[in-house]
């Protein structure tokens, strides 16, 4: 089975590793959320160039190294491993830089004051990956890199109430 040499990628990306990590996470998240996009990218009948263009359109202004990594993955038919590559590369970068990548999902785009509050809590050791999910209604879900989850969303609270009523 073909595999990405992530240690080599980390070495090559150097100071751009964190940015690359973020870009890989964003495209991986987009692909995970969209089944048709995933099908198109893994369709062997679709030309590699077309796949690269689709990703280019989805990630305008992405770094050169990101485009090269994606091109390599498409050419080597490794694109279906994109999510795993993103996760593994995130772990490598986090370990090397001694930082943490947490995911915070809001119901709507948070204001600067909210983001600052999060940054204040985290200090400079945590990088936040912000996602928007309107079904949360309000509040947020904070997923830490080590698997802990803080569900402070209205959806989560309603789910708790539903379970309490059903119990």
């Amino acid at each position: 089975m073909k595999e990405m040499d992530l240690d080599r990628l980390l070495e090559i990306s150097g100071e751009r590793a964190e940015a690359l990590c973020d870009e890989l996470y964003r495209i991986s998240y987009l692909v995970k959320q969209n089944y048709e996009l995933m099908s198109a990218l893994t369709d062997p009948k679709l030309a590699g160039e077309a796949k690269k263009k689709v990703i280019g359109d989805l990630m305008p202004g992405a770094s050169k190294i990101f485009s090269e990594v994606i091109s390599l993955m498409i050419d080597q038919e490794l694109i279906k491993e994109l999510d795993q590559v993103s996760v593994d590369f995130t772990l490598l970068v986090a370990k090397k830089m001694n930082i943490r990548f947490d995911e915070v999902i809001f119901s709507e785009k948070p204001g600067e004051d909210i983001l600052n509050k999060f940054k204040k809590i985290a200090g400079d050791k945590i990088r936040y990956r912000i996602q928007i999910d309107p079904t949360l209604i309000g509040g947020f879900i904070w997923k830490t890199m080590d698997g802990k989850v803080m569900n402070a969303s209205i959806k989560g609270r309603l789910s708790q109430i539903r379970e309490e009523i059903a119990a």
Partner: protein
Amino acid sequence: MFELETGLIFWNTVSFAILVFLMYKWVLPPIIAIMKERQMAITRSIVAAEESRKKSEELLAENKRKLAEADRTAKNLINLAKTDGDQVKREILEKAEKQASLIAQQAAQDMQAEKSRIINEAKKEIAEMVALASSRVIGRVITKADNQRIIEEALK
């Protein structure tokens, strides 16, 4: 009137003697033999009849004995069958009672399970409806400021 004629008497006597002699010599032996044979035949018949009677009596006695034995056997079998029948009847009744008890127990358990299931289903339905209605209402009425307040309170 009456006159004895000696000569006639003499000759009559001689003739009679000769007749008796002849009878004794040639006629009587075969008759005696026939009579003896006849007597022996009768004796044999009587013996045979006696034997036959004895055999008949023995046979009759044997038949009576066998009949009595058969009667005893039949009675025993009837008694045994009756005993077995009673035992089987008791076992069937016991089994039926046990089964009826189990069925009743199972039915009660099923009823309880079904009741619990229906209550749980109803609870789930109500919970779903409450959650759905709440999410719709909250989703409509929640403002940006409310959302910010919720986030800030959670971060405290």
